[in-house]
């Protein structure tokens, strides 16, 4: 297993990440009771997000105005596509064995 993809099991994942993956996901079958889960304070999290948003808005405006005051560069930076070949599209592709 490559180290780029962290394994979810064995306690290495934070509880926040686990809840993110598990909560409100998965098939719901009406006849099955869904019992409440102790220890999750969603309201607190939502309140924090609202406050953080306004902070982010103001930071964006300030950063944008600083950028606007700078001389504009000739060409904007572009994200280059990854050099790795597509993963799923060509499953049979082999590694080139060229030598120089």
């Amino acid at each position, binding site marked *: 297993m490559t180290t780029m993809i962290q394994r979810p*099991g064995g306690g290495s994942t934070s509880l926040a990440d686990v809840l993110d993956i598990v909560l409100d996901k998965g098939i719901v079958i009406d006849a099955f009771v869904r019992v409440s889960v102790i220890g999750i304070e969603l309201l607190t999290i939502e309140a924090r997000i609202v406050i953080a*948003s306004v902070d982010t808005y103001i930071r964006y405006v300030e950063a944008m105005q600083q950028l606007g005051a700078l001389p504009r560069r000739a060409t*904007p930076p572009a994200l280059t596509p*990854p*050099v790795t070949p597509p993963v799923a599209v060509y*499953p049979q592709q082999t590694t080139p064995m060229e030598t120089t």
Partner: protein
Amino acid sequence: MTLLLYGIVHADHPLPAGLRAVARDDLAVVVSDLGSAEPTAEDARSHLDVLCGLITTGPVLPLRFASTAADDDSVRDNALSTDPVAVRLELDRLTGMAEVHVQLTFDDTMVLGALLDEDPALARAVTGLDATVERGRHIAGRVDAWTARQADALLRPIADDLVRLADRDNGQQRWALLVRHDELDRLGDAIGALPVTATAIGPLPPYNFVSLPAKPVSRWGF
């Protein structure tokens, strides 16, 4: 005895100790006896560990965490009898597949610079808190749309399917990718080669790619 439910599998799916299968024909629901009265947040971890173990040996349709049933008959009647054809189709479709969550962090200055090139008016002066917040909200919307487009363009070529997940408040883009199990190493390489900061977690149960009709459309539906 109340049962805690994990997911729907083929009836011959190998199970670890502590779990058992409630089977009907070729399908089964993986269950355990519910120990404590109510699950805690920490139980979500063991729930995920169970599902992550199960997906290594075959397809699993994960059920909502903390779903419970009164007894085996209730499990058979409600999970396995309602629409077994749809369940089989989903199990077939997800055989050999895994979900991987990818978080992308874009450099703010780079994103804002790209937006400013598109629309120089974004840097125009504003006065007053309300106008500043409104401008900031507008920029945040543009940032979100721009980064979402970039993320889609970067991730779509390396996944069989993908869906954007809800943001946290940390400015990261979160996406769920559906990939073949035997392509995970290659996916890791591809994620490492992305031109943005990326972290990934997986393989996970296919939470964001599984769907079953909630119930038959009607008694007479085909």
